[in-house]
């Protein structure tokens, strides 16, 4: 899911980095001082969860939580995932450093869309599941686009990856739904004030 260095073409990298920078700038501008700790917590969650391997059949995966981050942060999801991704790349070689912009866009944009969607859906448990699911599915679509825009030959690989991530998307939907339900019960203001205008 994290694209390494040397895979994507220069135009894709440049465009992705440009758009992601814009997103990060907007995210930082729109984020109030009081929201920063929450952004830090979700960035840390995103960062740490990639280290926890969940066995699925012969292989396994890790949770991404970009959907949850999007729902709780809104525009701040861009800087949060950006920082998380840079550190993953530098510390663990998890994804390329030149690809950080594209990776940020691929994960934060679906997160942002999940934020919008979440506000529109009444039943928060369902909304949470959809957010988690679309976080992964959206990232896969963006990743697929990045790869196929680089080279058409990637298409079969993209289809394979997409299929492989379907169970992950479902798992992530469940986790996000559970987290949302928990927050609705304990601190509902966390959910509502990320939707404040």
């Amino acid at each position: 899911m994290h694209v390494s260095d040397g895979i994507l073409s220069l135009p894709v990298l440049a465009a992705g980095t440009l758009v992601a920078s814009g997103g990060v700038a907007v995210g930082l501008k729109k984020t109030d001082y009081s929201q920063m700790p929450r952004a830090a917590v979700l960035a840390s969650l995103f960062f740490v969860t990639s280290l926890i391997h969940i066995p699925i059949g012969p292989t396994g995966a890790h949770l991404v939580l970009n959907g949850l981050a999007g729902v709780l942060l809104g525009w701040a999801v861009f800087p949060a995932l950006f920082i998380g991704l840079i550190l993953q790349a530098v510390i663990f070689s998890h994804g390329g450093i030149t690809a950080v912009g594209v990776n940020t866009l691929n994960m934060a944009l679906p997160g942002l869309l999940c934020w919008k969607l979440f506000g529109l859906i009444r039943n928060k448990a369902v909304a949470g599941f959809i957010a988690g699911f679309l976080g992964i599915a959206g990232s896969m679509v963006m990743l697929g686009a990045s790869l196929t825009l680089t080279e058409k030959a990637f298409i079969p690989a993209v289809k394979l990856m997409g299929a492989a991530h379907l169970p992950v998307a479902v798992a992530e939907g469940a986790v996000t739904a559970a987290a949302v339900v928990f927050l609705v019960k304990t601190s509902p203001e966390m959910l509502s004030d990320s939707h404040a205008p």
Partner: protein
Amino acid sequence: MRLIEIGALIALALFSAHAPCTAHGIDASVGEGGVYVKIFYDDGTPVSFADVRVYTPAGREFISGITDRNGVFLFVPDAAGEWRVEADDGMGHRILKSIEVAGGYEYELAQRKPGRKFPRLYGAVTGVSLIFGFFGLFAMFSRRRKK
């Protein structure tokens, strides 16, 4: 933002050090050795870019590829026994060669950058600390902007 959430994060970071994790980054080590076959015609000209298949002593296909411009195909056997190499030039010439390998080849891992890999626990703690550091800075600037 409550203390219990911070505590949960730290617990996660510590827990992650013990969870086996398939690598998401890849690395390469460099070595020397192996077994090569050189395929050539009767008159000595090399059979370049010919299809080659290599079979393990158990009969399973180990690797396939093509010979280089000198007719050479190299592989590193990982078990002792009789390996079989099959080469085909696509023009009706085929050869099957048996190679007796005394021991599996081990090759030295060339340490290009010793200690480059961060141990996972330290990496996790470092990362989380840096994340809070960066957002602390952002918060500082955001506050200053407000005034």
